């Protein structure tokens, strides 16, 4: 890992704006491409929005932690929350535009815009990590 950025957010919609600001500052400082930044931002927004919309935090004061790790060939983005067990990688299936209007589309987009999704449950927390590969130089 060549650089790490940790952001702790309140479990509220205001947290997403703060996260986007920190994320874009990090990717800008690391010289990451517009395409990689876009995919990371999308992953961050979809994962955090999913926690806010569907999760019930065990500890409302705990908030959500997002960690960015910049590697030579990829960037990892982890979202850690205290809501009930939920593995986004297990949500599969195709969605029609009708389904998109009704919700659930965020995780569909996530699956298709990142290179890998890992999930683990430990110490009462969900930790979802997505990997976005950098383009070849």
């Amino acid at each position: 890992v060549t650089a790490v950025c940790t952001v702790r957010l309140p479990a509220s919609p205001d947290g997403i704006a703060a996260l986007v600001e920190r994320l874009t500052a990090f990717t800008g400082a690391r010289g990451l491409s517009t395409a990689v930044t876009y995919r990371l931002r999308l992953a961050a927004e979809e994962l955090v929005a999913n926690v806010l919309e569907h999760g019930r935090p065990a500890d409302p004061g705990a908030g959500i932690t997002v960690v960015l790790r910049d590697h030579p060939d990829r960037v990892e983005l982890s979202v850690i929350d205290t809501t009930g067990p939920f593995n986004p990688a297990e949500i599969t299936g195709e969605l029609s535009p009708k389904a998109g209007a009704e919700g659930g589309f965020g995780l569909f987009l996530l699956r298709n815009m990142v290179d890998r999704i890992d999930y683990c449950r430990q110490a009462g927390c969900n930790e979802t990590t997505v990997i976005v590969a950098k383009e070849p130089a």
Partner: protein
Amino acid sequence: MSFEVYLGTGERTTTVYLSGDLDIASAPLLQSVLARALTPDTERLVLDMHEVEYMSSAGLRCLIVAHQNAGADVEIVLVGARSEVVDIIRLAGFDQAVTISPGLV
């Protein structure tokens, strides 16, 4: 980036000029403006997306709802969207329901 939207209404065509981010924060305003843009006389709804930097599922959901509310007789044209935004529209299959144009409004 902040979100701005302007509405231009013609006889049969309504044009919505969008700039900034179509995300979870801007979605309520976008949905409201798109609902106002559609009148019984609207035959064509043009969304100028040249200045749109980013769109998430929340933004796309607004476009899909507008399409559903407009009905089959209204043509929806998305103009000037950047490649990442077009990728998301295509992933949703929404490119089958609208016209995507790279050019000027």
